[in-house]
């Protein structure tokens, strides 16, 4: 059949196929969760804080000024400018500067380590998810062990794809900002016009770059994992496909966004709505207000847990949709 006449994919079919895979292979949910960010929630609150204990603390603090009326001169003279912040700033100013420098260096090392680990983690989980999906599409049973092992070899290329192109685009954006600032501050008209044209062109190029990076990256990740290509090569091939499939990708992307909105945003808005409705109706109908607020508050934590899991499933589902779509066009548009 002519490729101009028959579409490469039908959204309905993609959704059906992806759903049947996701429903069957729960291990993909885990990788979906990991690619979503791998956030761990910790609801452990220190101590048993209830309203009574908070009141007790408040009372202790409120009673402090009254209790400390001893007969010291300084107290009598009055610490007129002495406030807690001033005392603390005094205490912390007594800490030598090199202590702060060591602390800052430590924190920088930790933040940088987290960034590097985050990049590796994202690359590995993406590769594992895509390997898992591919195994499922080949009628196999994906596992953490198998998918992870296959994913290791793609970490470097995927990390490159995640870091370098956005870095280049970010650098371009900074240059555009500098050009715009020069445009504002340089008074010579001819230079202003030249810089104006330059900044307009550069802004357009950056915008184009951002849009096509987002589109190309979808295919490039799959090319890295399935075709075992380098990051750069995959990005170029992905760009070729993205250029050919811009409108079809836009449509599929929009449908995915709408689906995500209905699944993720509506329940959150609903719960928050109940809480706010409770707050605002308390004045008119106290029982109703408190009731609504309580329902919202009770539902909040289970909702966070459920949304975390659903977010992972949704992530895996969307990745499966794009993988099926890629399989449909594999080798079709990325040639020379």
């Amino acid at each position, binding site marked *: 059949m002519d490729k101009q006449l028959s579409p490469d994919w039908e959204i309905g079919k993609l959704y059906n196929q992806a759903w049947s895979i996701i429903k069957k292979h729960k291990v993909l949910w885990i990788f979906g969760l990991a690619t979503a960010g791998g956030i761990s929630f910790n609801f452990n609150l220190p101590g048993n804080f209830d309203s009574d204990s908070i009141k007790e603390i408040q009372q202790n603090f409120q009673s402090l000024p009254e209790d400390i009326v001893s007969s010291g001169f300084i107290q009598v*003279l009055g610490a007129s400018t002495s406030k807690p912040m001033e005392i603390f700033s005094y205490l912390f100013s007594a800490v030598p500067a090199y202590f702060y420098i060591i602390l800052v260096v430590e924190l920088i090392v930790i933040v940088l380590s987290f960034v590097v680990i985050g990049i*590796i983690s994202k690359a590995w989980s993406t590769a594992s998810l895509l390997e898992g999906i591919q195994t499922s599409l080949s009628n196999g049973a994906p596992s953490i062990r198998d998918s992870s092992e296959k994913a290791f070899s793609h970490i470097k290329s995927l990390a490159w794809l995640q870091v370098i192109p956005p870095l280049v685009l970010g650098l371009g954006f900074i240059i555009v900002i500098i050009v715009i600032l020069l445009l504002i501050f340089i008074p010579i008209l001819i230079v202003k016009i030249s810089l104006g044209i330059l900044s307009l062109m550069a802004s357009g190029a950056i915008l184009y770059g951002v849009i096509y990076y987002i589109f190309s990256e979808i295919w490039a990740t799959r090319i890295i994992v399935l075709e075992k290509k380098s990051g750069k090569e995959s990005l170029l091939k992905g760009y070729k496909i993205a250029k050919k499939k811009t409108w079809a990708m836009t449509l599929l992307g929009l449908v995915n966004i709408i689906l995500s909105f209905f699944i993720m945003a509506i329940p959150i808005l609903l719960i928050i709505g109940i809480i706010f409705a409770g707050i605002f109706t308390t004045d008119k109908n106290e029982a109703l207000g408190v009731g609504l607020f309580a329902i919202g508050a009770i539902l909040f934590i289970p909702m966070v847990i459920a949304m975390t899991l659903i977010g992972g499933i949704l992530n895996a589902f969307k990745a499966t949709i794009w993988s099926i779509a890629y399989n449909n066009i594999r080798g079709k548009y990325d040639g020379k």
Partner: protein
Amino acid sequence: MENKIFAGIRLRLLASYVDLAILALPVTLLLWYAGTSYNITIFVQRLFVLLIIWILLFFIINLLHGIFFTHYFGGTIGKLLTGLKVVNENGNYLSLKRSFFRHTVGYQFSTILFGLGFLAIIRDPQKQGWHDKAVGSKIIVEKRKWPVALSILLLFLILNLYIIYSAFNAAFSGPLPKEFESLTNSFQTKQKESKVNTSIDTSTWQTYRNDEFGFEMRYPKEWKVVDSKKEGSLWIVPSAIVHPSREFGSSILVRYTFDELVAKNKEKGLSLDEWMNSFALGRNVRGVPHKVDIGNLEAYGLDATNQESDVYIMDEEKRVYLLSTYARNNQDFQILYQILSTFRFTE
């Protein structure tokens, strides 16, 4: 590998707790060191050191120890003491890359969805968590050493708890509570004038004036000034007192050549705030210095006890004046307060 016994969650938790208990020892020792501070600024400095070491130990050393020990020795100190070994599917130690991955991305992976990846150890036939599956690691029981590990854990636990107890004991029985009490004075926003009898008639008071150093003070006619220009100080005391430095009684001692510190400050040119910080730093000052008003002058005060106080004032030439007061009774307290309030720099 078939004959090996895989370590369950209890043994692995025990090994983790041993690691934690060993790692906590330097931190608790530093806590004790902070608790024995002789003043609050030193206490804050030591807490800062504690924070730096804590971050270093729990974020950096802990991670590096896990990665390198697992690669070179087959497990962290806790695991080795428990008789456990981390091996790959061939029974060898993990490569450095795998060990790094296990302790970073692997643990993060197991933590998602509320630590479900760690709980997976309970149900898994080979007792693997998600992080183990991700890198292909297995934890085997090499030797049955858990009683040793448990004993070590208890020992370190008791040691840590004892040090923590000692730290708090030292902190609460030392000078720190007094210093903290002074710190809470900063919650005062209003002057406690109600404590002072402002109805004292000062119209008949005499004036002491020091033209050389450019300051003046007023005092009751029943009191006297004993000026010791040689020592760079003066006493304002009740007339009955002959030798203020030797006799026990209410007094104000004004030190207007605060030699050592003034000389140093003339070179440095520090502001009162800066001078006070450097003065209090490292010295066993009693109480927390905080700003007070002496008339319209900015000053720092230190309440050593309810009877004794020091006030530090700086003139335009960066000379520091120390006004030390001692009140034997409440009546003298009221008078001393009024005298202190009359301190002025002259033109």
